[in-house]
């Protein structure tokens, strides 16, 4: 009986979906190399944002879908803006690159057509709205930029993006913070996103 219980316990822990840990005045996805300080009211984002990919289970925020590979996703209540945070491991050669080279590589990847096995993405074209800047994220190196984007083959820009690339000092991972919105509704929310970036740190 004890062995069965142990097995169930092991299985449960193996199958447990990733958590968004809230403690010591900050939020941190399981195993993430960064943390995000909470707002004065204890929330991660202001009230006009909705945490889209986590749900509370037994008082713990856990991913709704265990296949979800993003760290955090927010949607906006009043408009169609979305905020996504992704982290990926960097390969050995990528760890040797400067962050700006990784930024250029990401933009090149986003510009190229992609077939992911289910959907075809024709790629996007970008135009810088605000030049790339280094951001002071404690414990990390970071670069952010604001760009307008349109799908390849479409002449008119359809969305505006704020993107931050962030790499901890061990250079093993890279985290992207990406806020995407129709251009007309970008401005009202970007201050909230920059506020989140200012609360980021890599302990």
């Amino acid at each position, binding site marked *: 009986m004890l062995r069965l219980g142990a097995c169930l316990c092991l299985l449960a822990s193996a199958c447990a979906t990733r958590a968004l840990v809230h403690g010591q005045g900050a939020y941190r996805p399981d195993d993430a190399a960064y943390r995000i300080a909470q707002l004065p009211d204890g929330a991660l984002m202001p009230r006009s944002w909705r945490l889209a990919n986590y749900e509370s289970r037994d008082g713990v925020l856990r991913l709704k879908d265990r296949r979800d590979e993003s760290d955090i996703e927010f*949607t906006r209540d*009043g*408009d169609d803006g979305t905020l996504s945070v992704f982290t990926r491991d960097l390969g050995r050669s990528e760890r040797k690159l400067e962050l700006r080279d990784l930024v250029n590589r990401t933009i090149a990847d986003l510009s190229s057509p992609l077939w992911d096995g289910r959907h075809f993405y024709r790629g996007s074209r970008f135009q810088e709205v605000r030049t790339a800047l280094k951001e002071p994220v404690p414990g990390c190196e970071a670069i952010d930029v604001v760009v307008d984007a349109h799908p390849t083959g*479409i*002449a*008119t820009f*359809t969305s505006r993006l704020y993107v931050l690339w962030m790499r901890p000092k061990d250079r093993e991972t890279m985290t992207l913070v990406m806020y995407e919105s129709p251009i007309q*509704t970008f401005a009202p929310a970007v201050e909230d996103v920059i506020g989140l970036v200012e609360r980021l740190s890599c302990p």
Partner: protein
Amino acid sequence: MKKIFVAALIVSAACASGPRPREFDLTPDGFRTEGADWSLDPVESNKLMPDGWERVPGTYEDATVVGVRFKRIHLDGDAWLFAWKLHGDDQRKNLKALSERGLTEFRLGSGQLLFGTVEPAKAVLVDGAEAQEGLYEMRRRDDYTPITRVYAAFAKSLGNDTFAQVFYASPPGQFDEGLEAARSLMRRLHFSVPAHEAPAAASRGAQR
């Protein structure tokens, strides 16, 4: 060919975020579809549009959607009215977000044609709704002269449960003559107002 393209573009923009449309008929409250909480005032002689326009027959299949298309008889130009029930998260989206969806579909559907703003969206008075209208145009990337001019108006009911959009597209040289009729299509709309909004809406109605 160009007209077919624009028509297809508008229909795809209008249908992008809504189900397929349904018929509506003249009632004592104006043109209305059964169960809908909005109506459209007729113009003189109980018609949907003034002289010079005719309705294009269409297919109407869904219980919550109205889609009506009109074309000009002696000039080129088409107008569309679409309205549907908002559900779920869409009820919380503001007018700017919902109108951007319609305009983004235009941008995507315009392909290699540039879709630009002629007059930025501005608020308009519509009974029981928050509404805006703007003028846009499509042109080739290397050509200053527009190919098509577009009027686009959007209204979200104060009850947050209905969304309506009016599009009018015409060659630029014939655009102005049809613009007032297209604008009236939006301004003749009336939306039912929730009880707690009634006094404010009544005062808005009085301004019309």
